[in-house]
């Protein structure tokens, strides 16, 4: 038994009050595995402890919203039997350390979120923020990130149809890589993650588990690591080939009615997927780690529960349907293992080598997770002078503007992405929104990502409103009806009142604009602590918007069509 010292607790990111709560919930000292589980489930990333209170201020419903935030992705009704499933997610830190693999696995993760709900991914977008172009690292980061996104998306055969790219010194040491995936499913064929029922088999599919990306505490890691000569990497290598097989196998199984619940293993893989599925199903879950397919020898229970190996899924099947499901995964040459069962105990029980290594109430990981109302100060809009001089000839300013990295052509980026695969990209990169035809129909989805961090820096509230409005306009400009948004809230350290103020103002501003436009937020994620050496990034609440064109033959594009056509400017 590993002794749980205060130091170990701190290294797991739990403060004193949080650890006291753990002791109270368990009624005893946790095992090291349990400590690891609490550590990830109560992390900012999984629990949204700094933002949960404020996220409630966002509008999330509308008559066309089928599923708002809370599932793997949001779902909206796009007419007839069609549902559109989409989400955006950040992969900032890994992409800074290893731009190619970090960005690639970011794309892989968001695609799993979408196809785990039964959708075939039909489009990807990416919102990127880099440091100054002449910063020594920027070039390497840009080319690595773009190549990584391309490599994963292209191999998956999902067109990458749009995005945005900005450069600013505040991202020199902390780039932002936000990937959005959009999928389509039939309305009556949407899959959720609630592990309902008792005695149903819990099934693991996809790749084997290895020692990938186990953050946790350095000390605990050292103790549990066999080969200490190599520091354990915290960046995963993506395997788009396996993910493509996983996509096809999942969709094939979803054509049957064998699945009760399904969830991808994202951050904190087995831990968060099993805990969240049990929580949503109001059930308990028991898993036996000896059954988990393993890539390496001597994996400990701690490592298996915290591993972030990619390209894995957890499902609950109807009893008796295991054989049918297994045959499909075998055909696609993927691992398939029954690793547990749903129970009525309301507890999450983890066994390893015949011993119980964790046994805790499921609600301890969800409802009981900490929520903070962190102190914040709302600052007044930044003072400053515009850089351009109105007295100068307009042409000079225009030429200067066109030469800025934010406004220059992004063709160099999108030409590295296959934006024509799947044969439905009816409006390709370069316009206000991308338009992807709903396969086999005359309908199209208008897709865009937007936020202008400079505005958000000048005034977090107005900047966030502007981002919502811009997404709305970009969709309208191609002839789409704006329907819903996903978001990726990239901010700095919530423990600093100034930064927390940016978060609060940003969320409130977004909420206000969304309500005014009837443009709800149906999914999203928060990425906090984006700072280097005490300096935060510009507040960057990135938005991904989805709209519908009922008839793509009426689509508008940016290109001027004919000599002699009138040019009209409208709006204020």
């Amino acid at each position, binding site marked *: 038994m590993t002794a749980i010292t205060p130091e170990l607790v701190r290294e797991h990111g739990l403060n004193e009050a949080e650890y006291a709560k753990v002791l109270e919930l368990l009624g005893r000292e946790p095992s090291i595995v349990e400590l690891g589980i609490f550590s990830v489930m109560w992390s900012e990333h999984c629990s949204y402890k700094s933002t949960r209170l404020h996220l409630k201020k966002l509008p999330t419903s509308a008559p066309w919203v089928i599923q708002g935030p809370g599932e793997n992705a949001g779902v909206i009704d796009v007419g007839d039997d069609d549902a559109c499933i989409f989400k955006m997610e950040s992969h900032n830190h890994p992409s800074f350390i290893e731009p190619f693999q970090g960005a690639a696995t970011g794309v892989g993760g968001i695609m799993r979120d979408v196809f785990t709900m039964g959708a075939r991914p039909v489009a990807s977008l990416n919102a990127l923020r880099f440091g100054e172009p002449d910063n020594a690292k920027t070039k390497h980061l840009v080319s690595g990130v773009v190549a990584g996104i391309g490599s994963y998306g292209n191999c998956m055969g999902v067109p990458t149809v749009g995005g945005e790219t900005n450069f600013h010194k505040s991202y020199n040491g902390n780039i932002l890589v936000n990937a959005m995936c959009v999928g389509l499913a039939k309305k009556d064929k949407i899959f959720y993650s609630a592990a309902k029922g008792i005695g149903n088999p819990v099934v693991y599919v996809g790749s084997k588990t290895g*020692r990938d990306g186990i953050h946790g505490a350095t000390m605990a890691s050292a103790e549990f690591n066999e080969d200490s000569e190599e520091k354990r*990497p915290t960046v995963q*290598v993506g395997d788009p*080939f396996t993910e493509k097989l996983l996509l096809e196998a999942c969709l094939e199984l979803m054509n049957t009615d064998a699945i009760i619940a399904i969830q991808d293993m994202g951050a904190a893989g087995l831990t968060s997927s099993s805990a969240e599925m049990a929580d949503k199903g109001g059930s308990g879950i028991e898993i036996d780690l000896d059954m988990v397919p393993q890539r390496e020898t001597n994996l400990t229970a701690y490592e298996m529960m915290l591993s972030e190996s*990619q390209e894995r899924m957890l499902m609950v099947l109807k009893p008796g349907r295991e054989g049918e499901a297994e045959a499909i995964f075998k055909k696609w040459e993927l691992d398939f293992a029954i690793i547990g069962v749903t129970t009525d105990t309301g507890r999450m029980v983890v066994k390893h080598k015949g011993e119980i290594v964790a046994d805790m109430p499921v609600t301890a990981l969800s409802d009981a997770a900490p929520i903070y109302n962190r102190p914040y100060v709302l600052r007044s809009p930044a003072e400053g002078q515009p850089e351009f001089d109105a007295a100068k000839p307009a042409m000079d300013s225009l030429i200067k503007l066109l030469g800025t990295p934010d406004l220059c052509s992004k063709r160099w980026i999108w030409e590295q992405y296959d934006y024509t695969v799947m044969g439905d990209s009816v409006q390709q990169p370069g316009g206000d929104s991308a338009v992807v035809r709903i396969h086999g129909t005359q309908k199209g989805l208008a897709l865009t990502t937007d936020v202008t961090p400079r505005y958000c820096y000048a005034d977090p509230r107005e900047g966030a409103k502007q981002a919502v409005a811009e997404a709305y306009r970009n969709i309208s400009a191609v002839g789409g009806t704006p329907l819903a948004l996903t978001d990726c809230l990239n901010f700095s350290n919530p423990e600093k009142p100034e930064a927390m103020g940016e978060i609060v103002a940003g969320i409130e501003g977004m909420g206000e604009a969304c309500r005014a436009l009837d443009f709800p937020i149906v999914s999203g994620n928060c990425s906090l602590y984006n700072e280097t050496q005490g300096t935060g990034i510009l507040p960057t609440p990135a938005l991904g918007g989805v709209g519908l064109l009922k008839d793509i033959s009426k689509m508008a594009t940016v290109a001027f069509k004919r000599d002699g056509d009138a040019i009209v400017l409208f709006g204020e």
Partner: protein
Amino acid sequence: MKARVFVTLKNGVLDPQGKAIGHALNNLGFESVGEVRQGKLIEVELSETDEDKARAELKDMCEKLLANTVIEKYEIELKA
């Protein structure tokens, strides 16, 4: 002087390429094949003639460019 630099994934890091190659070799009937790992082989011609200096320089190249030591390790082999 000529050098060979081998850049491979660290132990424990998933190697999708190696995995797929191993699979394919098994399917081709090479049953004695176990784990396969794929890495890079970089051959470098150096005008430097001092072996120690060359080795130090190559190490520097690996750290700066040839390998990303977050996930990769490297090995240097010199031939006179």
